[in-house]
């Protein structure tokens, strides 16, 4: 289960619910329903989770995030140095995956904002929408139509075309 946020860093404000001032002898249906939910759903699920955690307690393991060293790009390789080409290609593929994940994160943020705001998301989610549009436009311009056999060389050629088009547009 995902851990809760740090209560020391983000303290919750003091509760402002008024003290219970019952003026009737009838039972409170909200209380009854909450107790029902607690005993029928919350308690069994929590005990099951605690049991499973006690089984797993002595087999805990951890995993790390792998960081790769930067190697020279395709531009910095000598011609005919196929080893350098290979390393640059692998680095480009890792960067491609990272960029795909970045786009997914930005998209997730925009969808979360949309879900939160409901019908008024056009007005309130401006920042997320603008960020998403910018990120997807950049991704499209860099990796856009490379296809399934995309490679670092094809991406480089696409960049060259982009730069040529920009230079032509500027001089024209």
């Amino acid at each position, binding site marked *: 289960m995902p851990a809760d946020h740090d209560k020391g860093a983000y303290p919750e404000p003091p509760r402002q619910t008024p003290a219970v001032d019952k003026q009737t002898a009838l039972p409170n249906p909200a209380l009854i329903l909450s107790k029902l939910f607690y005993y029928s759903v919350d308690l069994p699920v929590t005990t099951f989770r605690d049991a*499973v955690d006690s*089984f*797993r307690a002595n*087999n*805990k*393991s*951890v*995993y*790390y*995030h*792998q*960081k790769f060293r930067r190697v020279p790009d395709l531009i910095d390789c000598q011609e*005919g140095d*196929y*080893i350098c080409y*290979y*390393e640059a290609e*692998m680095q480009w593929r890792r960067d491609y995956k990272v960029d795909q994940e970045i786009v997914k994160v930005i998209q997730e943020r925009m969808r979360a904002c949309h879900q939160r705001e409901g019908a008024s998301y056009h007005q309130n989610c401006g920042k997320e929408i603008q960020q998403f549009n910018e990120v997807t436009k950049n991704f499209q311009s860099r990796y856009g139509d490379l296809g399934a056999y995309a490679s670092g060389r094809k991406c480089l050629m696409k960049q060259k075309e982009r730069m040529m088009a920009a230079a032509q547009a500027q001089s024209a």
Partner: protein
Amino acid sequence: MVGMSVLRSAAAFAARLSPLKSGNNAANLLSRTIPRTDKVAVRWGHGKKLFVIKPSDYYDRRFLHLLQYYVLLTGVPVAVFVTCVNVFVGEAELVETPEDYEPEHWEYYKHPITRWIARNVYDSPVKDYEKMMAAIQIEKEKADTRLTQLEVRRHMRQKGDGPWFQRPTLDKGLIDYSPKSTPDN
């Protein structure tokens, strides 16, 4: 006399009944009860038993039964094993890499079965990378050797003096210079 008429009327009544109908044999002609239509219990429990004629589904059912058997034969142990692994061993947690510690290559995966496969079955990604680069290096050297070979062959063919393009000729020492050895011949 009255009994005779009753018997005669009964015989006439029995003669009128069709002998082919199944309820009309002599055993229950006189002792059967008259069906009371107003007190019949209306239940659709049995209905009339029908003999439905349809093509045989024996082979289809046998196939499905065998399919289910063979799929579950290994499917159930695998499912039980994976459930036990998930309950008793559990997935790893993501932590920051501590300073001056180089994790093993299987410590980059989350699920315990993936970690086991990465540790015992697969080579480490570093080794795969190096194997690929070694293959590329060998191929590069082969290509370079072929290019230099073509270059050398071109040179030798042109100049005609290399070891590859020699034509075997007779020994120079066997040439008889005697016809032209003196100016008076």
